[in-house]
């Protein structure tokens, strides 16, 4: 985690927004600002998280509700995600989507799979 903390100061506003958005989408339910901050990579001030959240609310990517004495936040499920999902299936049907879009990962063979598992255990064991 050291490397991440070092790079904290270099995160751009856009990166921070993306991170907060990712936290909200990855979570199953609604989160408070403090909960969001706990899940964000690198330590931020809660006020920073709140500023990012207000920007995302202005862009209508995040909604907030009052729950008890604090606010909880959730991602907005709007047309953008639906459109992107349509793109997924569209490109899945195209025979050569692999080359059309640079994908993060491709499939693994059984041997590769074993190798990757060993690798993750190795790293976590240290």
């Amino acid at each position, binding site marked *: 985690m050291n490397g991440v903390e070092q790079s904290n100061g270099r995160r751009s506003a856009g990166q921070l927004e993306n*991170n907060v958005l990712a936290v909200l989408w990855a979570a199953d339910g609604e989160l408070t600002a403090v909960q969001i901050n706990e899940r964000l990579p690198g330590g931020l001030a809660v006020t920073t998280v709140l500023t990012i959240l207000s920007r995302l609310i202005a862009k209508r990517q995040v909604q907030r509700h009052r729950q008890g004495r604090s606010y909880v936040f959730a991602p907005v499920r709007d047309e953008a995600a639906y459109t992107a999902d349509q793109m997924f299936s569209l490109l899945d049907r195209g025979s050569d989507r692999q080359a059309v879009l640079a994908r993060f990962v491709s499939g693994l063979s059984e041997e*590769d799979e074993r190798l990757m598992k060993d690798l*993750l255990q190795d790293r976590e064991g240290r």
Partner: protein
Amino acid sequence: MPLSVAVPLAVCVLLAVTAPRLSRALVPRVAAWMLTCAAAVGAALWTGALALLAFAGLGRVRAVAALGPWSVSFLHTQDPVSTPLACAAGTVLAGCLAWAAVTAYRRGRVLTAAYRKAARLPDDRELIVVDAPRIEAFALPGRPGRVVVSTGMLRSLEPAEWEAVLAHEQAHLRHHHHAFLHVLHLAAVLCPLMLPLAREGEYAVERWADEEAAEAVGDRTLLARALARAALAGQPAHPAPAATGGPVPRRVRALLSRPPARRRTGSLLVVTLLLLLGLAGLGQATADTRALYEQALHTYAVRHCGGHPCR
């Protein structure tokens, strides 16, 4: 002509054998550039050489010769390219061109549809999250370029890891990697000999984005872990044996070893010389063909028009 026209074809074969291996000595960014340029020039050499060979056959067709007009019997005795060879070259060329046209059309249609949809997305969003369990992350070029990621991917990684994934996709967008992939793919369709270059080129492009992402998050093992985890999570219950395996473990291993060394220009030089040799060969073959037809024109004129150019 047969010797000179063999040079560009031989260069294509040499590129297929050596270029992927030579690229491994280079920094990923340079390797991607080298392979893409080599594949493009290689495909052009291949197409040009086949076209010259095919033309040798076409010139012997009486109806075509009448357009010159040039002497067909002169070509039959003087042109070292045999008719079967010319026919074979013509068939291969037609096949490659037709296949390239079909692929370009199909791909163009899918891409246009995707971009039309992307244009409907709000302008201020760089990151689009799709609420779906499958493991998916990709870069969608355009203005603005976007990164699409599934909740399945986000949930299978740790927060620090998904930051590395986003950095990887952003590197694709920043450096227009889709353009590299288009060129590589088209070159491989035009000239099957460029397939090894296209494969290695795709890998080099991914490595380029990996190195950028690793630098952005300041941690190489973090990205390696994200890659391994995403690849494992994305596995279907019954993996197809070794059908698509390969690049991910190689990328992970590259990330866990030391950052790529600065530069080794030797391999760049070898590939550049090969490409120049191929271009020179193609130029010579074109000049030889031209000289041959000038003689054929002259022979016809001597026989039919008393030595004056026939009208």
